[in-house]
């Protein structure tokens, strides 16, 4: 087989293989583990850059492997999968650096980094899935790989959080499996196809197809943290900071949201979904989640929990974009997949830095952190402003396109949802910024570890949030430049709507 046919598989394996090798390492082989981690991350980045160029030129990459007769494992690259692959690869590289810095002196690192790598392989597998079976396979592997990361600390809290996480995701996985098998029994192998495959389905199975849509949505909604299936997410906050960052920005919630996008566009087809009222149902669900998540975020004093509820809210913008009929809103939803990732990972890195350096875990303890840790706080500010939707940070671009799209489709109530949620975003982020920059620092921090170097904190912990903050800023500032998330989302929308 040619290189093109192996490229998608190579991208998945580039982190899977180092992950498996890391398991075998002794705890103290720090150097070798780091080499394996970084080799995998950089190799994956190189392969993905290669793929981006190819897909842009209309090149088709597909790895097809017959598991058993009638069931194929298909990894293929279209514009949508590349968007998600590029996001996860880039953020994985950054998070790996952060995690190496963060966990340098804690136990069980071989186990941690092994599962960490497999987790990213599963995410990339989800992104590249060419059919529903493959999607289900990687979706479940993701559950299996993230469980040990959530449970990693081994405290009773961690055990409880992991248990809740597992109960939710296993239940969701079972629903997804039921939906997938049912759909496949009705219409045969479900390959993801631009424009969907059910547009031509016979009239008499329509009712069943609609039912299956909701089964699939419930299965995917668990990971995407749609209300009322979001209960695991705040609990999973017990995980170490790099895991939270990865879970929220890249892997788990994004996998759910991405799955919803796939099912709407490439299985049901946006026309079919629109004509049968599925989009409206999804839109309402997403809107409820957006408002509810923001309201809950308001009431949290724990910084990580506030960020967690913010994720519940923000990820549903992606589903909201998918639920509005029209290419402009689609662009808004797709581009938010990337923008939310960049901003949220920045926020979580910063939260980790505050906890690590000052022992600050709560919003009420954050008075004056701006002066004490200016670079971290600057990155945090960029992320928070972006979440609110202040230009020129990336979040503004997402909200702009969502709003334009809603107006274009005549869904004025969506505009109202956007306005209300932006106000709520401001209400729970601005007080933090005010505390950080304008209030005096306390005499003593809860638990301070003074870093001896030139920087406010070790470089491996400082550079990742600074880099992602710069990326979030430039994704907004230079949104119209070539190869930005916005331009790529436009490409996807054009292809989905067949222009």
């Amino acid at each position, binding site marked *: 087989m040619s290189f093109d046919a192996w490229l998608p598989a190579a991208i998945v394996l580039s982190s899977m293989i180092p992950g498996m090798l890391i398991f075998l390492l002794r705890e103290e082989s720090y150097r070798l583990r780091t080499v394996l981690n970084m080799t995998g991350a950089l190799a994956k980045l190189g392969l993905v850059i290669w793929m981006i160029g190819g897909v842009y030129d209309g090149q088709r990459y597909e790895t097809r492997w017959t598991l*058993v*007769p009638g069931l194929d494992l298909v990894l293929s690259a279209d514009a949508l999968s590349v968007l998600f692959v590029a996001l996860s690869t880039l953020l994985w590289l950054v998070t790996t650096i952060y995690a190496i810095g963060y966990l340098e002196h804690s136990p*069980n690192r071989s186990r941690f980094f092994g599962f960490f790598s497999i987790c990213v392989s599963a995410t990339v597998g989800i992104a590249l899935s060419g059919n529903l079976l493959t999607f289900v396979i990687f979706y479940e*592997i993701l559950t299996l790989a993230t469980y040990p990361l959530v449970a990693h600390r081994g405290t009773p809290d961690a055990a409880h959080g992991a248990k809740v996480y597992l109960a939710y995701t*296993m239940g969701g996985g079972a629903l997804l499996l039921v939906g997938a098998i049912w759909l496949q029994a009705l219409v045969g192998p479900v390959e993801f196809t631009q424009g969907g495959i059910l547009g031509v389905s016979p009239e008499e199975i329509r009712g069943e197809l609609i039912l299956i849509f909701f089964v699939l949505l419930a299965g995917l909604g668990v990971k995407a943290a749609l209300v009322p299936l979001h209960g695991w997410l705040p609990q999973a906050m017990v995980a170490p900071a790099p895991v939270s960052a990865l879970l929220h920005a890249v892997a788990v919630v994004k996998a759910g949201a991405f799955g919803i996008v796939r099912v709407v566009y490439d299985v049901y087809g946006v026309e079919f979904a629109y004509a049968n009222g599925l989009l409206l149902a999804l839109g309402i669900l997403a809107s409820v989640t957006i408002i509810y998540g923001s309201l809950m975020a308001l009431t949290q004093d724990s910084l990580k929990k506030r960020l967690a509820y913010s994720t519940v809210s923000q990820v549903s913008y992606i589903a909201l974009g998918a639920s509005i009929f029209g290419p402009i809103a689609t662009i808004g939803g797709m581009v938010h997949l990337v923008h939310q990732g960049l901003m949220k990972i920045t926020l979580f890195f910063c939260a980790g830095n505050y906890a690590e350096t000052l022992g600050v875990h709560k919003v009420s303890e954050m008075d004056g952190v701006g002066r004490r840790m200016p670079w971290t706080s600057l990155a945090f500010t960029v992320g928070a402003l972006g979440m609110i939707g202040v230009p020129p940070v990336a979040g503004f671009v997402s909200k702009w396109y969502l709003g334009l799209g809603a107006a274009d489709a005549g869904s004025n109530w969506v505009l109202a949802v956007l306005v209300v949620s932006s106000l709520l975003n401001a209400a729970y982020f601005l007080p933090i910024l005010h505390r950080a920059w304008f209030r005096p620092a306390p005499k003593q921090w809860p638990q301070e570890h003074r870093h001896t170097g030139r920087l406010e904190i070790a470089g491996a912990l400082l550079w990742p949030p600074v880099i992602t903050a710069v990326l979030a800023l430039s994704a907004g500032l230079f949104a119209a430049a070539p190869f930005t998330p916005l331009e790529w989302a436009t490409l996807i929308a054009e292809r989905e709507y067949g222009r």
Partner: protein
Amino acid sequence: MIDALPLAVTLPLLGACAVTVSPAHARGLGLLAAVLTAASGVGVTAAVWSDGVLRVDLGGWGAPLGIALEADGLSAAFLVMANVVALAVSVYAGGYFKSESARHFWPLWLLLWSALNGLFLATDLFNLYVTLELLGLSAAALGALTGTREAVAANLRYLLVGLLGSMSYLLGVALVYAAYGVLDIGLVAEAIEPGPIAWTAMTLMIGGLILKAALFPMHFWLPPAHANAPAPVSAALSALVVKAAFYLALRLWLDVFAPVLNEAAANLLGILGAAAVVWGSWRALRADRLKLLAAYSTVAQMGYLFIAFPLLAATPPGLARDNLLAAVVLLALTHGFAKASFFLAAGMVQKTAGHDRIDELGGAAQALPAATFAIGLAGVALIGLPPSGTFLAKWMMLEQAMILGLWWWLFVMMVGTLLAAAYVFRVLSRAFNREPTPYRFVNDARTELPALLLGLIATFGLGIAAQPLWALLEQGAFG
């Protein structure tokens, strides 16, 4: 290559004699016999794969008089699984048993192996009875090897139940012989016709076999027997011995009683299977000991296999039915590898921690990463998650059930899957506790690697590269 067929049965028998004669070298001789036997078993499968169905008439006497051995795709598939698992169990046992118990283990174990291979390869109903009886006797004796009171009591019961089962089977065989005057499977299949005799014979024979396969509600003997046996024996009992009874039931169902089958019988087996899935999984979840959990999980997993019967009965012959049959075989094989891996790893945990009470297992995981991974991999296959062979098998079975409109099997299997997830993760959650211990992935290669390899075969092997199974079953097993 043809000669591998009798060798698969006689080599372990010779080995059993050798270790009995020279108990001082039991381990060396036993391992030698194990390697040779496994090689011949794999050889038979390879020959079937490339050349088609193999048949040998021993001593040149054909049916109906002589003893014949035959390997088609179905028997070859079970044969290769059984021999790979048995080899892994042997290597593990070489490191597990102290010299005293090793002396008792090896002769019985090789006898069991010989009976097992004989069962997969025999072609006449009476010879099948002989292998079945031998298998039951050696299994019960091995199970009592620890000598504790619980083990002896449980395995005495196992012995009696086994005898009852084979007695019932034998009665059926006698009926068949009295009515048709032949015992060779092929000849019986030609002669048999619907009627009270055939139905009674079928009921007796299949009834005896489901007792041995521990189908709900005849499973009562299994959990104590399997949970109290030494770890390598538990692995063999759960992965292979009950599977052999299932194999024989499937074989009779497909090849002998095909003309007299009715849907009611198939549905009854399916319903019992469904009850086994739910009850077995529930009891596994409530079990307080690791090996008891694994034993109840076997009850549940056997249930999945019997759900295949109503699906097979409802599917008309053709591609869909062939795929369904292959899926069922894939499920049985994956479970064989996974359950053996689980028990072997559980044995290591028990040895290291000094007990196997699940709630007190914290810390054992960090000391035994390889064994914990084996439990994890086997657990993935037991739940039926990707990338395991069971995931694919269940997907195919359920897709076919949905095509047939039999949605309730989907429901049962999903309940079983969720319960399995709960009991597997109940164990795995013990792997995370605060005390860090020096991390070495493999501590005792001899016992940990067999468990790990079997787990890898069950998940990655059969979950990604199960395609050859179809080519194998092409040889005489597909209708």
